[in-house]
């Protein structure tokens, strides 16, 4: 239950995009990969603060980090951005999930209560 919302990748992506620093980081990454140090440069922020923003972007699937132990450059995750690039596409999965729930609810309404059979 605690993970229900966290599981919803779309919410995570949306939440990640709802921050101007993180959008600025993404805009920078459109130009090409960059290390955390490079990403931190234009901001008056500490490295840990920038790292935190990058982790949010990473969890949302918007940014990938390389495996080079030392620098681990950040790269923008194109496919994820494509999915969320229009609000309409964001809404598609929201509605699909809702209608799945409507289906389940309709089935519950029709089913006799409990396993006792007919009242």
């Amino acid at each position: 239950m605690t993970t229900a919302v966290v599981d919803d990748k779309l919410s995570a992506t949306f939440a990640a995009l709802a921050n101007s620093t993180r959008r600025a980081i993404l805009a920078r990454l459109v130009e090409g990969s960059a290390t955390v140090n490079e990403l931190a440069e234009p901001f008056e922020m500490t490295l840990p603060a920038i790292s935190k923003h990058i982790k949010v972007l990473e969890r949302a699937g918007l940014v990938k980090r390389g495996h080079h132990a030392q620098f681990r450059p950040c790269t923008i995750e194109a496919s994820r951005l494509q999915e969320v690039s229009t609000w309409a596409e964001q809404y598609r999965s929201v509605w699909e999930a809702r209608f799945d729930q409507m289906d389940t609810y309709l089935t519950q309404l029709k089913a006799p209560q409990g396993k006792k059979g007919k009242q």
Partner: protein
Amino acid sequence: MTNKPDSENSVVIERSFNAPADLIWKMWTDPDHFKAWYGPRGATIPVAKLDVRVGGIRLVCMEMTTPRGQMQMWFTGKHLVVAEPIRLNYTESMSDENGNVKSPSEMGMPEGHPTTTEVRVELQEADDRTEMILTHIGIPSDSPGAIGWNMAFDKLAIYVDAQVNE
């Protein structure tokens, strides 16, 4: 205000339900039924005021638990078309708990999100099943913020295309 749906700014979903149209109509218009399915996974709908008549106002509250605690989102709108049980059109905007419309950017949403959208529900019953067509249309916003964010996405789209064609 009518907008011709285009694929960029609208989403169309067709679903078939194993229930008569009268019941699907109630899913949309009866607050108790509406609350039972409308919340996204992990969310509840503590408030659903649905004044289902043309010009009637809606106010819906969505509540969810996030890692940062309880979060409430309010939505308001107006019913535009009410034709039981075949057609329901209404507008939707983010709002405060009193139904005062808030712009998406005020609510911390990406600015490409239109302030007002329109939801259209069409129902057609056949053999005890109901075909439902949902159209959700964005009413274009020409605020400078919206343009900025769209431009950012245009830039990203070019990048995405380049990646795909690599």
